[in-house]
C-alpha cells in the first residue's frame, strides 16, 4: 500500500461564528496529483494553511509526511514547495537575490535547474520583484517553489488571474513534478478543466464541508447526464434517484444523476421514458450540479 503524503482527519475550524472547515477528512497518497476544488470562500485556503502549519488544528489532526506541520515546521516545510495566489514574495529583492535568499533555506536547491527555470520563464535576474508583472511574479514564485525539487508541491489557486501562457507553465510544472518518481502535487483551483486535465484525485469542498473526495475516474464514472424522452409530457417534472440537476419541459428532459448508471436507467424506464442520450458529464458540470443542485 502506498503511504499518504497528506492525512487530514476530522478537521474542523471555526473563525468566530463562521465554520470554515467542517469535519474534513482527506488523504493524498504519494505520487498523485490531488486537485481541490471549491468556490471562493469554501475553505480551500484554510485547509492549505493547516497543511503548511500556519494554522493549528484545534479539532482533528493534520499530518504531512507523517509529521505535524505545527510541531515540526522544518521537517515539513523543507520538503514542500509552496505557491499561493497572492505570491507573497519579498518585494524589495531583485530576482537573483530572491533566488540566493531562497537557496539558503533549502539544502537540496538545484542551481542548474533554478537557472534553467529562470531562462524558460524569461526572468531578468536584475529585475526588482515589485516591478514584475503579475505573470512574472507567478513565474518567480514558481521558480523558487520548484528549484529544490520538493517532495510535495502545494499550490493554492496558482492560475488565478493569470494569462494562458503562465497557466500553461504552471500546469507543466505540475505534470513534470509527478512525472518524477514519487513526488506529489496538491493544488486548489476553481478552473475545473485544468483540474480535470491533470488530477488523479479530486476533492470538492463547499461551505467548509467535503462534498466528495475520490479518484477522478470514480467521480466521472459515478455521474451521468441522461436525456429522457417521454411519449407524452409527464404530469410532473420527472425525478430519478440521485438526481442533482434537471432541465427541460414537455417531452424532453435532461437530468444529471449520481450513482450506478444501470440502476438509473432502470428507474428512467420505470417512469416510461426512453433514454435518448447518456453521457459522462465534465467535472465542471458535476461541480455545478453538486453545489447548486442540492434542492432535490
Amino acid at each position: 500500500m502506498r503511504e499518504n503524503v497528506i492525512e487530514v482527519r476530522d478537521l474542523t475550524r471555526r473563525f468566530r461564528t463562521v465554520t470554515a472547515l467542517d469535519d474534513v477528512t482527506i488523504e493524498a497518497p504519494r505520487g498523485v496529483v490531488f486537485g481541490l476544488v471549491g468556490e471562493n470562500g469554501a475553505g480551500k485556503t484554510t485547509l492549505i494553511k493547516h497543511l503548511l502549519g500556519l494554522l493549528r488544528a484545534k479539532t482533528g489532526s493534520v499530518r504531512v509526511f507523517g509529521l505535524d506541520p505545527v510541531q515540526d515546521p522544518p521537517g515539513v516545510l523543507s520538503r514542500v514547495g509552496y505557491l499561493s495566489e497572492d505570491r507573497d514574495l519579498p518585494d524589495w529583492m531583485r530576482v537573483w537575490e530572491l533566488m540566493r535568499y531562497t537557496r539558503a533555506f533549502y539544502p537540496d536547491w538545484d542551481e542548474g535547474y533554478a537557472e534553467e527555470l529562470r531562462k524558460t520563464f524569461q526572468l531578468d535576474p536584475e529585475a526588482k520583484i515589485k516591478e514584475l508583472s503579475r505573470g512574472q511574479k507567478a513565474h518567480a514564485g514558481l521558480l523558487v517553489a520548484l528549484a529544490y525539487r520538493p517532495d510535495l508541491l502545494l499550490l493554492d489557486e496558482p492560475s488565478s488571474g493569470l494569462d494562458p501562457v503562465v497557466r500553461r507553465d504552471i500546469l507543466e510544472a505540475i505534470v513534470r513534478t509527478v512525472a518524477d518518481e514519487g513526488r506529489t502535487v496538491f493544488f486548489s483551483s476553481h478552473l475545473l478543466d485544468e483540474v480535470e486535465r491533470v488530477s488523479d484525485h479530486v476533492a470538492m469542498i463547499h461551505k467548509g464541508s467535503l462534498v466528495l473526495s475520490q479518484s477522478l475516474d470514480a467521480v466521472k464514472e459515478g455521474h451521468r447526464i441522461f436525456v429522457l424522452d417521454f411519449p407524452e409530457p409527464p404530469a410532473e417534472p420527472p425525478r430519478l434517484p440521485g438526481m442533482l440537476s434537471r432541465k427541460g419541459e414537455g417531452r424532453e428532459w435532461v437530468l444529471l444523476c449520481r450513482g450506478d448508471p444501470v440502476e438509473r436507467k432502470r428507474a428512467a424506464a420505470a417512469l416510461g421514458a426512453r433514454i435518448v442520450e447518456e453521457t459522462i458529464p465534465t467535472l465542471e458540470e458535476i461541480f455545478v450540479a453538486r453545489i447548486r443542485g442540492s434542492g432535490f
Partner: protein
Amino acid sequence: MRIRISPRDGVPIYLQIVKQVKYLVASGLLAPGDQLPTVRRLASDLLVNPNTVARAYRRLESEGVLVTRRGSGVFVSNAGSPLAGIQKKKILSERIDVLLAEARQMGITLDELVRLLRKRDKNMKKK
C-alpha cells in the same frame, strides 16, 4: 504526433489519447516501427497527468497497436497493418452510426442516404 485533448469532451482523457493514436495508425500518419514520445514527454506536451498517458499506452499495447521494447521505448507494432484494417472499419463505423442517427432523426430513409453518399462521392471525384 498531433493529439488534441479536450477536457470538456465527455470522453475520458485516456480514451481520447487511445482513439487518436489508433486514428493516426489507421490513417498511416504513424507507421509500424515508428517511435512514440515517452509518457513523460507526451504528458508535458498535452498537459495531462502522466498516469493518464501511461494508461492509454497500456491499453494500446494490450490491443496490439503499440509495443514496448525494453530500454528503447514505445513503438507502433509491426502487426499494425492487419489490425489497422479492423481499426479503419471501426473508425468508419462510428462515424456512420452518427450519420445514420442524424438521418433517422431527419426522416431520411437508408435508400435516400445511400443515394446521397453516391452523389457526394461523384462530386468529390470531379474535383
